[in-house]
């Protein structure tokens, strides 16, 4: 860390702004005070925000890792669906709308049983699914190669949970004795 003493008044002022320290002009009588404040702020590791874009990128990066492993570990069906829907996900804001529609696309790939379950799974438990969905969209530019294993919940656990929820919902619906258990909901 370069010495604060050697900084010009303007540089000091800019640094103080970065650390969000309220300050007046940096003159002889105030300089030592501001130097001390900057030193404390640096030592405390306070958030210095030179570029506000970093947090945005970081979120995107985290997101892609969780998103990419399904291509690796699962069959063609899953990876195909993910890969196809990935280009549509350019922004995180689109996650709910596009992800629902994207998940509806790979429906024809699945068997008849699971076909009926897919739309409900994504419609009914939005709260349980949304954390997962939120994590899956990411920038499509990342190559589907070995991502670092920096996830909290392993991917296979996520899939087991996913399948378990699917099976559970199927059982629930099949046990409802109505004429059209599934068709009514599209």
């Amino acid at each position: 860390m370069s010495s604060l003493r050697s900084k010009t008044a303007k540089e000091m002022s800019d640094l103080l702004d970065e650390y969000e320290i309220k300050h007046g002009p940096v003159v002889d009588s105030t300089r030592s005070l501001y130097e001390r404040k900057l030193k404390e702020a640096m030592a405390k590791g306070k958030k210095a925000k030179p570029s506000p874009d970093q947090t945005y990128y970081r979120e995107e990066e985290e997101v892609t890792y969780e998103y990419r492993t399904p291509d690796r570990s699962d069959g063609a069906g899953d990876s195909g669906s993910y890969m196809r829907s990935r280009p549509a996900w350019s922004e995180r804001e689109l996650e709910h709308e596009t992800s629902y529609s994207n998940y509806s696309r790979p429906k024809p790939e699945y068997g008849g049983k699971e076909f009926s379950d897919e739309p409900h799974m994504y419609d009914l438990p939005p709260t349980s699914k949304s954390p997962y969905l939120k994590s899956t969209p990411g920038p499509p530019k990342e190559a589907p190669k070995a991502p670092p294993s920096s996830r909290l919940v392993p991917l296979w656990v996520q899939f087991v949970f996913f399948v378990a929820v699917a099976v559970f919902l199927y059982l629930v619906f099949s046990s409802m004795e109505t004429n059209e258990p599934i068709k009514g909901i599209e």
Partner: protein
Amino acid sequence: MSSTSQKHKDFVAEPMGEKPVNALAGIGEVLGKRLEDKGFDKAYVVLGQFLVLKKDEELFRDWLKDTCSANIKQQGDCFGCLKEWCDAFL
């Protein structure tokens, strides 16, 4: 505001002119000497510093603590005194 000393009242009652630094509320003999040693020999010089720090309480308190090791009460008294003076005369 709630309980100001006689010193405070005397200071804010009139323009400070050439009053010495220990005329400020919160600044007694010891602190006054320390300030004078640092070059702040008159009340208006401390006023100048107060204004350069944009009349900000936290900055002024920190500066006072750094410069003459004033305690919390002394910092508060001095700040309040100068602030009220500025409100009246500046």
